[in-house]
């Protein structure tokens, strides 16, 4: 028999709720509208009692129903006498009402005025700036300790990071720089061919790959690959309280965790940039030879003639700066991470976004600087 609900009045001030049959969550249960109406219309009700002797089986369905009855009753300040309920249900309701609900949690004012939210955003961005400077200061101090030889970190960690950001990054750097070299060569050649000047593909590619594109593309790859990894590693360590464990044992987490990561990227970025340049130039040669009928030797000659050491240095310096910024952004976001899985995701996203933003800003500033210096 499905759940049934009857309302009785043993005395005018006593409303008796009679429940009977099977009260399971999976079944459709009687509505409470009638009960609510009675409470509304009859202001002389002082007490609600129950008769549950005919309930055959019940689960949370009955309890949810009772919770609603309790709620309505307490809204109207009517007392509840649970004596007539099935034993288990009575005890469960006692448990459910043992701890009063927490109020004023501040969770309900979700819709605040637009200006309010803009203001809060701006303030929190404003507050983020000194935090970043603080981290920059700590990293600088840590490098100071490194040069004095007092920085505490495991050399084997550094080696692992070097392997990870160096050797393991080669496949993706190869692929991307080959394709970029291909694109630069092809795009340029189509234009140059109009003047019969295909041979200058070599100049275009060697200059472009060594001075700008090699560093920029490697930077963006490393921001996505390594910056994100750093943020996720440090963020997870933050969640597991591992960073607190370092602090408690008197290790400086900046020395121990951040320094080897930044160092590894600073050491490896120049090599990756050089490698990207070589791969890009090879790709340019591939286009020139197969599509535009330039011989390998001609291309080689032209590349060597157009190449200057300054281009290589400019590219390597840029790449090193990008590496530093990527590692800095990744570690910063990782160390700032909150204590949940969600926060690790946010830290990782933010590390990549910050890293790429830094790279673009640095690229603009460095280009202007080198221009002014006439390099």
């Amino acid at each position: 028999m499905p759940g049934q609900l009857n309302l009785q009045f043993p005395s005018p001030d006593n409303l008796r709720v009679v429940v009977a049959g099977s009260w399971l969550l999976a079944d459709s249960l009687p509505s409470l509208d009638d009960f609510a109406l009675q409470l509304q219309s009859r202001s002389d009700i002082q007490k609600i009692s129950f008769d549950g002797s005919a309930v055959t089986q019940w689960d949370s369905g009955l309890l949810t129903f009772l919770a609603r009855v309790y709620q309505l009753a307490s809204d109207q300040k009517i007392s509840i006498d649970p004596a007539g309920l099935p034993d288990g249900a009575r005890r469960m309701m006692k448990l459910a009402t043992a701890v009063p609900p927490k109020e004023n949690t501040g969770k309900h004012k979700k819709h605040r005025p637009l200006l309010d939210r803009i203001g809060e955003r701006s303030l929190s961005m404003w507050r983020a700036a000194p935090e970043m400077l603080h981290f920059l200061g700590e990293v600088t101090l840590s490098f100071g300790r490194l040069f004095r030889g007092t920085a505490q970190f495991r050399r084997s960690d550094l080696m692992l990071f070097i392997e990870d950001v160096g050797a393991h990054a080669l496949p993706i750097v190869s692929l991307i720089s080959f394709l970029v070299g291909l694109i630069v060569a092809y795009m340029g050649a189509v234009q140059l061919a109009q003047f019969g000047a295909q041979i200058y593909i070599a100049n275009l590619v060697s200059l472009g790959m060594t001075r700008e594109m090699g560093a920029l593309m490697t930077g963006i790859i490393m921001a996505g690959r390594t910056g994100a990894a750093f943020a996720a590693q440090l963020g997870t360590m933050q969640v597991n309280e591992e960073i607190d464990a370092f602090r408690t044992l008197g290790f400086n987490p900046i020395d121990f965790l951040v320094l080897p990561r930044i160092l590894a990227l600073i050491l490896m970025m120049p090599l990756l940039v050089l490698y990207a340049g070589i791969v890009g130039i090879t790709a340019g040669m591939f286009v020139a030879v197969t599509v535009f009928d330039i011989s390998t030797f001609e291309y080689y000659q032209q590349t060597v003639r157009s190449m200057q050491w300054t281009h290589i240095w400019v590219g390597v310096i840029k790449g090193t700066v990008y590496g530093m910024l990527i590692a800095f952004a990744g570690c910063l976001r990782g160390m700032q991470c909150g204590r949940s899985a969600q926060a690790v995701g946010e830290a990782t996203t933010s590390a990549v976004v910050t890293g790429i933003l830094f790279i673009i800003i640095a690229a603009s500033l460095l280009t202007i600087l080198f221009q002014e210096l006439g390099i």
Partner: protein
Amino acid sequence: MEATAELHNTDPDAHITVQDLTMAYGDFIIQRNLNFTVQRGDIFIIMGGSGCGKSTLLRHLIGLKAPASGRVLFESISYWESSPVEQQRIKRGFGMSFQSGALWSSLTLAENVALPLGEYTELAPADIAEVVSLKLSLVGLAGFEEFYPSEISGGMQKRAALARAIALDPAILFFDEPSAGLDPISSRRLDDLILELRDSLGTTIVVVTHELASIFTIANNAVFLDAETRTMIASGDPKTLRDASPDLRVRQFLNRGET
């Protein structure tokens, strides 16, 4: 048919039956020859020293890890020999409270409890919200619906995880170290709740713990796993085992090393 009938359990009250279970990671055997029965309405404790495979046994019982050999029967159905559909049906009757809560951190407490309800029942959103509030109030967290797990304390997270575990009124409720990290009063309240769930709803409860106070308060049956011999060395009511187990190791464990 004789052969299959044999493995089926004849005891109508047996809820979980473990037969000749061997647990292993690859070639490394954790425990072997486990045989025990959890009766309907039991509060059953899996105990033993650290590293003896208590949590691994629990993972076998809830269907997260397949046994190296042996069977786990629910009522009379062998879980690992059933079809995926049947396994899914059996698992629907489980509630599990993980050691560190395992609440989904991107969801609020209400959403955490509501997720299984929305997925596996036909209830309307408004009804789900009421069931969620009821479950949260049962664990003493009424009013915390809109909080995220990271915004509440560890003990509260554990209770919230229990609210999620009992969302679907499970027939069997599993706990991994329920009182680890709780203060004595919360721990006591949790024991009361466990007893209440058994008494009121008839839930069968399986608990991994080595909290002695809690064991003697709630348990009526137990199995004791030993790390050295890699098998169970005792089973039965922990109070009886404490006073009269023939095995010294069991008596020592249950008397905090004093015998």
